């Protein structure tokens, strides 16, 4: 092996999109190869966990860790890669704030298994459920235990940097890679530990080109049921629940530009304590009514407030889980 610094990337509870996003930076990937030795990257090359275990502590310069922590295996790898890495980046919204898989924190483990293994859409005539360990003539075989809640990477290990996005945008990944290479060449300095990187300084609304007037609405509408959307007017003003006001800038307001509401994949904007709370505040301010009954009628138009306001952020919200989940089986 050469003496180039080492790079690793790992996926925990994730969909694989973050991996694709890194491969999707086109020829920039050659810069990664030119400047780094790939020490461990299961999606791109064969490697065994024991190879990582055998590495010296701190011998990997940069690890991009994507996915939330849902199983014992996720947790083991998070701890292992923390030990072996100088810089550990929570990469993508699942590692940063739980992401979509974090929404499962509204359900207990039993409810999740029920949905996966025995609802009508599942072919499981023998009612087979995964068992963490099983006796075979050859010995005991095991699979990683599914933990009661999904945790974010920083709820399990110390994290150096956060890079949100579902997945992070190519130009943001390229900029971060450029920065790391410049740091290696002594031409730049790393941001302060704990910084969120690859995002803009304000909100998605700030990057959005739709016109905003005074927001006053009498009705919420689901976008799939509306056929008269004004292409230039703010979606929230048209009663379409867009969570741009709570979301960090960085993507260039991709979704509202394309005609769909922002669903918050870039995570909370700087200064937002709880994503859902910020959206509740924003939504409450646009409702044009002082009458309790009318307010209720308008709010009925928001079909799933919790799922909408915490689509990416539940695991990192103030409450983190549903009540039954934490101790649930």
């Amino acid at each position, binding site marked *: 092996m050469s003496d180039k610094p080492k790079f690793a990337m790992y996926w925990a509870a994730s969909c694989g999109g973050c991996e694709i996003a890194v491969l999707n930076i086109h020829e920039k990937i050659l810069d990664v190869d030119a400047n780094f030795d790939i020490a461990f990257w299961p999606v791109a090359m064969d490697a065994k966990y024991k190879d990582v275990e055998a590495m010296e502590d701190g011998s990997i310069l940069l690890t991009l860790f994507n996915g939330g922590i849902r199983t014992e295996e996720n947790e083991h790898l998070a701890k292992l890669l923390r030990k072996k890495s100088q810089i550990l980046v929570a990469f993508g919204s699942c590692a940063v704030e739980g992401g979509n898989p974090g929404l499962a924190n509204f359900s207990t483990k039993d409810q999740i298994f029920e949905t996966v293994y025995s609802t009508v859409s599942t072919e499981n005539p023998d009612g087979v459920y995964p068992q963490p360990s099983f006796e075979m003539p050859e010995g005991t075989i095991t699979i990683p235990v599914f933990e009661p809640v999904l945790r974010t990477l920083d709820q399990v290990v110390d994290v150096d940097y956060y890079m949100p996005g579902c997945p992070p945008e190519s130009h943001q990944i390229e900029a971060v890679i450029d920065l790391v290479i410049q740091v290696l060449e002594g031409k730049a300095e790393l941001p302060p530990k704990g910084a969120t990187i690859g995002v803009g300084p304000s909100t998605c609304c700030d990057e959005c080109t739709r016109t905003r007037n005074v927001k006053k609405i009498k009705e919420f509408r689901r976008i799939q049921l509306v056929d008269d959307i004004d292409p230039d007017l703010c979606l929230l003003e048209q009663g379409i629940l867009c969570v741009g006001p709570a979301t960090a800038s960085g993507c260039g307001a991709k979704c509202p530009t394309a005609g769909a509401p922002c669903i918050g994949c870039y995570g909370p904007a700087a200064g937002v*304590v*709880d994503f*859902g709370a*910020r959206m509740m505040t924003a939504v409450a301010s646009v409702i044009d009514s002082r009458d*309790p009954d009318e307010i209720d009628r308008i*709010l009925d138009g928001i079909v799933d407030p*919790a799922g909408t306001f915490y689509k990416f952020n539940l695991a990192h919200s103030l409450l983190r*889980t549903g*009540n039954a989940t934490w101790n649930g089986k």
Partner: protein
Amino acid sequence: MTKDFEPLIIGFTCNWCSYRAADMAGTARLKYPPNVRLIRLMCSGRIDPSFILKALAGGADGVLITGCHPGECHYLEQNYKALRRVKLLKRTLAPFGINPDRVKLVWASAAEGVKLAREIGVFVEEIRELGPLNWPARSTPEINPVVEEVEEVAG
């Protein structure tokens, strides 16, 4: 089941009405249960859902928000804003498995010390009925740091 359970309630009061009402209740030696820790805001419109969530996550069993009667807000419209926020928050709490009745909004003017004392008493009993919340993912086991923290964000 929970007869000897003493609920812990965080109360957010408005500087212009309910905080004075509570003050008046105190001066007039009206009795209200000691279960509620009052935090003064400049206006009920300052209530941010994150204050309420923080209180619940941190160990409170219930949260009471009090503001000026509709039409009497010192800052004109803000108590309506509080009304809409609290209504939306209550709807959001259900999937978390938190009974929305743990959060209550009450109107009380500066002159209504008696009413406020009574409302506090009623709410304490309602929460006693619901039992302890014991938020499992609570970040802070003690309520005092939570009060400080909530006061800090409330500014």
